[in-house]
């Protein structure tokens, strides 16, 4: 244990940097993914049938492909097209596109779960479509979508560890570098596992608090 703590102390800054990068990547991906997901979710419900098609294809492709494959695709396909993304940029792109599809789907589900009478009533009192969305539909949909949205966030934090495969120096890769040097495999993997758990428990707690305050089911 002493030997482990000594090694942990030596490696504290690289591990901390990796931890921050893991959080940074996850936050960037969920913010971008939420923006994409909002557009996708609303379009899936309200766009005319033909305009809906590209969104349906996007959601199916992203949800039907393993995250690791998306990450490798985001890293290599732009490169052969002459656009060189850094490993971190490619990783955030892949996770954001992945999150966008999931959030789009869960927003679609939430919007469709609102009884049609609500939208009809809104239109009957003369609300325009943006007003209807802002005042009637989205406030209800967001409440319903919040628990699965938090769940997507948890998935993203765990998924960010896959970016170690393309050489992003996030928590997992930094951990592997330390293990490569001192051979303390089990100790440092357990440590990294606890760090991931900590972030996810905190996120979960924040989610629950918001849910309580918003009075979602």
């Amino acid at each position, binding site marked *: 244990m002493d030997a482990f703590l000594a090694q942990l102390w030596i490696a504290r800054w690289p591990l901390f940097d990796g931890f921050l990068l893991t959080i940074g990547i996850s936050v960037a991906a969920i913010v971008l993914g939420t923006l994409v997901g909002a557009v996708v979710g609303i379009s899936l419900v309200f766009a005319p049938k033909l305009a809906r098609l590209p969104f349906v294809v996007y959601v199916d492709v992203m949800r039907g492909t393993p995250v690791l494959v998306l990450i490798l695709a985001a890293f290599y396909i732009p490169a*052969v097209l002459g656009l060189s993304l850094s490993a971190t940029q490619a990783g955030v792109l892949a996770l954001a596109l992945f999150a966008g599809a999931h959030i789009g789907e869960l927003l679609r589900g939430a919007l469709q779960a609102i009884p049609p009478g609500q939208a009809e009533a809104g239109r009957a009192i003369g609300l325009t479509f943006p007003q209807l969305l802002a005042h009637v539909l989205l406030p209800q949909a967001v409440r319903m979508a919040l628990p699965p949205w938090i769940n997507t966030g948890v998935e993203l934090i765990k998924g960010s560890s896959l970016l170690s495969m393309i050489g992003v120096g996030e928590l997992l890769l930094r951990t592997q570098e330390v*293990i*490569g040097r001192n051979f303390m495999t089990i100790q440092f993997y357990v440590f990294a596992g606890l760090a991931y758990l900590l972030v996810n428990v905190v996120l979960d707690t924040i989610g629950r608090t918001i849910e309580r305050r918003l009075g979602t089911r």
Partner: protein
Amino acid sequence: MRNIAKTIAAGFGALSLAVAFAGTASAEGKLQEVLSRGKLIVGTGSTNPPWHFRDESNELVGFDIEMAKIVAAGLFDDPTKIEFVNQASDARIPNIVTDKVDITCQFVTITAARAQQVAFTIPYYREGVSLMLVKGGKYANYEAMKAAGSAVTVSVLQNVFAEDMVHAALPEATVDQFESVDLMYQALNSGRADAAATDSSSLLYYMKQNPDRYVDSGYSWNPQSYGCIVKQGDPDWLNFVNVALREAMTGTQFPVYKAAYEKWFGTSPAEPTIGFPAELR
């Protein structure tokens, strides 16, 4: 399922199209491109001592790193003008093919199959497999272990070829496979195994980190050459890297190569002989 098939098909389509375009793109050579950029972009890993790993001050160090510095010194007279791109072992060839890096020095074993996809430089090290024993243990060296036959247990890193690899040297030995390096060494320390078999360079490094605890069995086998890799189709660039590496192993830059070799492998390479260039014999 059909969606996945479509995705994959579409991906391959886009990829092959892009490769076709990229093939015709490069107008000026890689050597000029690197010189005008002012730094060399090197692909390598960060988790395998003594080849490429981060030391306690988080600097990338190791023998592969020194080889990259030799190339950078040849280009810019400054071994520090390098941008290292961290990559997993499986990314070594793709990152070369897609121009993510100028060169990869990451203990790439030279094989004819790989040479169909990338261009290998001359080898800068020949790796083998060695046996490490505890000092003052049951067996003194390789001969004693071979004489003991099936009584000997060898710990080895888990691998499809692990059993055959050990049996090539010790035909009757019992082989215990472990899934990580530290477990393999622990088996030796705890006496569960009489010897640990792995890459000679890793053993040398480990023995150097733990002086006076272990001995080498005195026998190595399974030769494989390590070289850097560059993209195919640019003979000037390949030739430049070859000249830089060759002159570090046999010519003016030998002191640099020698210092790196001694630092990471703990022994000295043979001095180049003066007179006829022996590597051409």
